[in-house]
């Protein structure tokens, strides 16, 4: 049976109050350079996976900073761990290690979905 009544669109606003950032804390604890990202996008520009899919490692950093974990497991799986991104990063961020930590963190912190 159809549901009746009004529905509201989910807010697009990023709410910083009470944001939970367990995954971010876990990554930064093990790979402090993750917090030095400037969003320059050179990682995404060189990314092999980004040539073939809509995978965007720069955006992933921002999503995790916002504590938005919906669907990121599927995103991470698009990465082939080739490591080109860490060769181009001007801030020397170990992006490949960050990806590995995302995978580990999602499982060990039971954030997987």
């Amino acid at each position, binding site marked *: 049976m159809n549901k009746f009544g009004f529905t509201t669109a989910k807010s*697009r*606003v*990023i709410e*910083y109050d009470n944001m939970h950032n367990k995954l971010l804390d876990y990554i930064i604890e093990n790979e402090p350079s993750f917090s*030095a990202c400037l*969003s320059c996008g050179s990682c995404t520009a060189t990314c092999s996976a980004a040539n073939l899919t809509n995978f965007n490692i720069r955006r992933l950093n*921002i999503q995790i900073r916002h504590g938005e974990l919906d669907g990121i497991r599927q995103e991470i799986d698009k990465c082939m761990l080739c490591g080109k991104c860490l060769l181009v990063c001007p*801030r020397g961020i170990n992006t490949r290690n960050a990806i590995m930590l995302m995978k580990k963190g999602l499982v060990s912190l039971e954030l997987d979905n």
Partner: protein
Amino acid sequence: MIDVIIIGGGIAGMEAACTLHDFGFEIIILEKDKHLGGHLQNWDTLFPTKRNASEVLDHYVKEVQKRSITVYLNTDVTSVTKQDNGSFEINTSREVVFKCKTVLMTTGYDLFNAERKEEYGYKIYDNVITSADLEKLLQTNKGELRSPSGNPIKSVAFVHCVGSRDEKSGNHYCSNVCCVTGVKQAIKMRQLLPEAQVFNFYMDLRMYGAGFEEMYREAQEVWRVQFIRGRLSEVAETIDKRLQVKAEDTLSARPLRMHVDLLVLLVGMEASKATGDFAQSCNLACAQNRFVETADFHIASNKTNVEGLFTAGCAIAPLSVFDTVNHAKAAALTVKEHLRLNN
């Protein structure tokens, strides 16, 4: 006749006075305030070393005193007029008319009045302060730092480019030092309040000087200051005196909202009003941004369009302490060369 009269007893004026004195010239400093030191008196620490500003201030005041350089405090300059013989006459709030061969203008800058950006709520909401207010607060604060309304501080936001790079405030130029000041103050807040979250809202981060970029990275990596690319649209106060801020997170192309206990506006620099007041009396050329126009930006940045009238420091543009001191030293050499050729 006095060789050089220096208008403005900030660090530029003091540095130039000491160097010119050591060259053997007779100097007078005219200062409008009741103390030497200008804005530096109100700063707690200096970037990028984070040393106490008072160390630098005390150094210069002592150097001036050691040389027994004549200083007139509480003296407002009203006009500077060039005489037919090339010398200058300076009228001030004092009765005496000062006469000299050359004038060095080290009149510095004024801070942008943040009340003009009404949407940020300065002087409307208790817990919105400026970067200059924060320096004052840090200078005098003993014990736990609290917001002006007396609340504990759990989150702080800094707003970059307040009154700079903003056509709406009539200032299209960049004030140079606010970016790095914001980074310095953000680190300080994390050090004083380890439990607090600190956010910096920026349009661009301009870490142009030696050690600035390193400090920015330290803020990110060691202190976990959160840099958000986006300019605040407006600020509103909640019933418990917290502040709701709105901006766009331009890197994820979505609006964002947060509540903070303290909002710090990183105010820029404007050409000093004192400069404008007497610029007309000596036909001194000012640039579109109202700062003094130098005769040649690259090779004669201490000279003005008036021969014998020199300038140094923030009279020409927003400059850091580092740049101001070097520009003042260069001014002393330029004045010396002029006096040598014209005596």
